[in-house]
């Protein structure tokens, strides 16, 4: 595939991610922060997000498996996940976190478990999408092109 086609593919792909609500305005802000002095900024921040999220999801799973659930612990992790997902613009993940926190407040284990499933699902979707997008970007760069804004 030639560079122009790849670039078009990238733009279309990115647009679809916004349309489908996977990404929001915050992600655009992230891209705007990247420049020649920090050419890998977006990838670095997103990688941090992946690490963070996986850690929180593991903790949440453990916390919700306990006989007697410590809702403050659950809430603390959801709060962090909500914060980081909103900061990078992972809108759908953020939205599940909002519902998740409500269930925590109500001390509703069923509701929390449901949200945990949902958030894991949304997280894995956005992770796959972002990784595909980065791969496309890499292909363009390798082919000697530049990443369209």
């Amino acid at each position, binding site marked *: 595939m030639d560079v122009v086609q790849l670039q078009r593919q990238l733009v279309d792909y990115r647009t679809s991610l916004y349309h489908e609500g996977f990404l929001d305005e915050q992600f655009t*802000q992230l891209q705007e*922060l990247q420049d020649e002095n920090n050419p890998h900024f977006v990838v670095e*921040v997103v990688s941090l997000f992946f690490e963070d999220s996986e850690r929180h999801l593991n903790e949440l799973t453990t916390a919700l498996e306990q006989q007697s659930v410590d809702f403050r612990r659950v809430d*603390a992790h959801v*709060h962090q996940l909500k*914060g*980081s997902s909103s*900061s990078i613009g992972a809108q759908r993940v953020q939205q599940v976190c909002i519902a998740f926190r409500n269930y925590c407040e109500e001390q509703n284990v069923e509701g929390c478990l449901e949200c945990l499933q949902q958030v894991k699902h949304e997280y894995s979707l956005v992770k796959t999408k972002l990784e595909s997008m980065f791969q496309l970007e890499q292909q363009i760069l390798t082919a000697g092109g530049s990443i369209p804004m």
Partner: protein
Amino acid sequence: MVLGKGASSSLSMKMADGAEDMVNNNNFTVLVVDDDPLIRKLHDMHLKNFGLRAQVVENGKKAVDLCHVGANFNLILMDREMPVMNGAEATKELRAMGVNSLIVGVTSCGSPNEKQAFMEAGLDYCFEKPLTPDKITFLLQELNKNN
């Protein structure tokens, strides 16, 4: 660029020299207090783009300790929920110590009561996370007014 990672991750008292001030010619110093490394990185980058030098620490106690040993900041960006010492407690302590930097809460929580309580701890402003260029522009204007 030498400044980059060093300033962000160390608690060193020396303000690194040489950060070329960009357009705005700011000599303001900023402290970012947040337990989330992602947020610290993000805010640090945002501030760099405005030519601001930021130090970052991960909880309220570290912020208080830094100021206690004499570090001075024009602007402190304070997260609300942190381990060891949260934003509200840290803000109260800083004010009690006589710190009169601009202290701005940056929180991802929405409840008006929580924000109110945070403001009452001694904040000048409270924003929702994350920081954006317009919020920074606004804060710079405030800093310019006061200095």
